[in-house]
């Protein structure tokens, strides 16, 4: 059964049509990626789903429509987005950033348990918990952004370009973590320019080009697809 179902999603900014009517689905427990070149409309699609930009079309999450809901209400229903550029609160401490992730939750016990869990996942964040978010390195900020989203205990985690701007070693570390999170049973939708990485961890993939989805299928199959190989895997 699909947890997220998107039908005819369109996003336009002042005459520029970034997303021109796309359909896709993410099943419960799946790791799905949306790949495509810079400017294909991937981030706009995520922002449209989260209510951060005006969007047309139908987005169903669980068994309810998200039409016209404000972002905070969508988050309260169990969706969390790790935004492009990480969106760390630079003047809040690491611990406060993590508290913000659990903003919608009231179960103190559960929050404490999840805090222990993300600190176990990212020991570096535990070392730096009293430091301001703005003083972390890019990779640490990405860890913090993912950890913060996990603090919401989301039913669906959306990741926007988690590898962007990071050193190769850090990218590998982040992707290990993504695989570990997926193995715990969290449903993930991953948006990536780095198709190689994304296809390796995902079960299914959608390829986006100039605002439309041009291809989709099992990730392993797309990784072998001649068109994808030439356009996105640099072969």
């Amino acid at each position, binding site marked *: 059964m699909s947890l997220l179902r998107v039908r005819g999603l369109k996003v336009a900014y002042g005459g520029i049509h970034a997303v021109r009517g796309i359909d896709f689905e993410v099943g419960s427990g799946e790791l799905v990626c949306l790949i495509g070149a810079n400017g294909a409309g991937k981030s706009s699609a995520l922002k449209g789903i*989260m209510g*951060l930009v005006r969007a047309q079309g139908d987005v169903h999450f669980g068994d309810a429509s998200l039409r016209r809901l*404000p*972002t*905070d209400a969508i*988050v*309260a229903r169990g969706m*969390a*987005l790790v*935004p492009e550029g990480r*969106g760390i*609160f*630079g*003047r*809040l401490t690491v611990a*406060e950033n993590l*508290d*913000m*992730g659990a*903003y*919608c939750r009231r179960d103190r016990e559960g929050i404490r348990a999840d805090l222990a869990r993300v600190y176990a996942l990212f020991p570096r964040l535990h070392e730096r918990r009293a430091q301001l978010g703005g003083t972390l390195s890019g990779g640490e900020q990405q860890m913090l952004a993912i950890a*913060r989203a996990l603090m*919401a205990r989301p039913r669906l985690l959306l990741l926007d370009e988690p590898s962007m701007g990071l050193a190769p070693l850090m990218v590998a570390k982040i992707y290990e973590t993504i695989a570990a999170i997926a193995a715990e049973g969290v449903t993930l939708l991953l948006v990536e320019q780095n198709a190689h990485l994304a296809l390796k961890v995902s079960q299914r993939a959608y390829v986006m080009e100039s605002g439309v989805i041009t291809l989709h299928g099992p990730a392993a199959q797309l990784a072998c697809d001649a068109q994808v190989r030439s356009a996105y895997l640099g072969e």
Partner: protein
Amino acid sequence: MDILTQQLINGLVLGSIYALVALGYTMVYGILELINFAHGEVTMIGAMVALTVIGLLLGMAPELPGLMVVFSGLLVAIPACMALAFAIEKVAYRPLRRAPRLAPLITAIGVSIILQNVAMLVWGRQYVAFPAILPQGQYEVFGAHITDLQLVIVALSLTTMAGLWLLVERTRLGRAMRATAQSKEVAALMGVNVDRVISATFVIGAAIAAIAGVMVSAYYGLAHYHMGFLLGLKAFAAAVLGGIGNIAGAMLGGLLLGIIEALGAGYIGDLTGGFLGSHYQDVFAFFVLILVLVFRPSGLLGERVANRA
């Protein structure tokens, strides 16, 4: 009498009032990058509402203790100002949230003029006297005088600032306010209802303004429909001095500005050989504002303002 000590005391009292008003400017600026020029008028409305309640109470029960009467006035003025600020934000600023920055700024000036005129219609053009019902004790400290009222003003204002500090640093709402000030979009992604946090910011600032309004009218012994204008401008100067958007900065800036003003007023006569007198007191706030804008636009504790403004 020691002029220096006396003016330091006077400056501290005045400065603690400026600090309270400056907090309202800086909190709203921190979140919306809007200079809420109507904030001075909210302070004035606080004073007027409190004085009305005080007048009614004295009419009904003249034997009540003065301090209790004034606190009752304050307890009505606070929710009145909170409701007013809530309405101003909703009606005048929220529809302009996505408009160019100049639009809400001009709207703020408009709201300020409207409030002044409404106050003039309701309370009249004349000065409203603050009845002499507060304790009038006076004490000697290091050769200077300090009154009961001055002590109450400083104590109440420090308590208010401490309360605000706890709210902002230690509560869920405070954390949401700080997060929203840094990024409305990411705050929303954490599940923060950004509109509600913005409302709360205006409302909290207005509650503090009501306290300041009652203090200033008690201190000068009067209130007037126009009193919020100069007070607001000075508090704004204090917020800029401390670094606008920075809460500790507003507190520091307010206190410093009060002290600068009092010292300036105390010594300007001597310094100019009697050419200028202490009625030039109001000049200093704006002199400081100009110096800060020229030499340290980000203020004493501010950061990154120059590239945002």
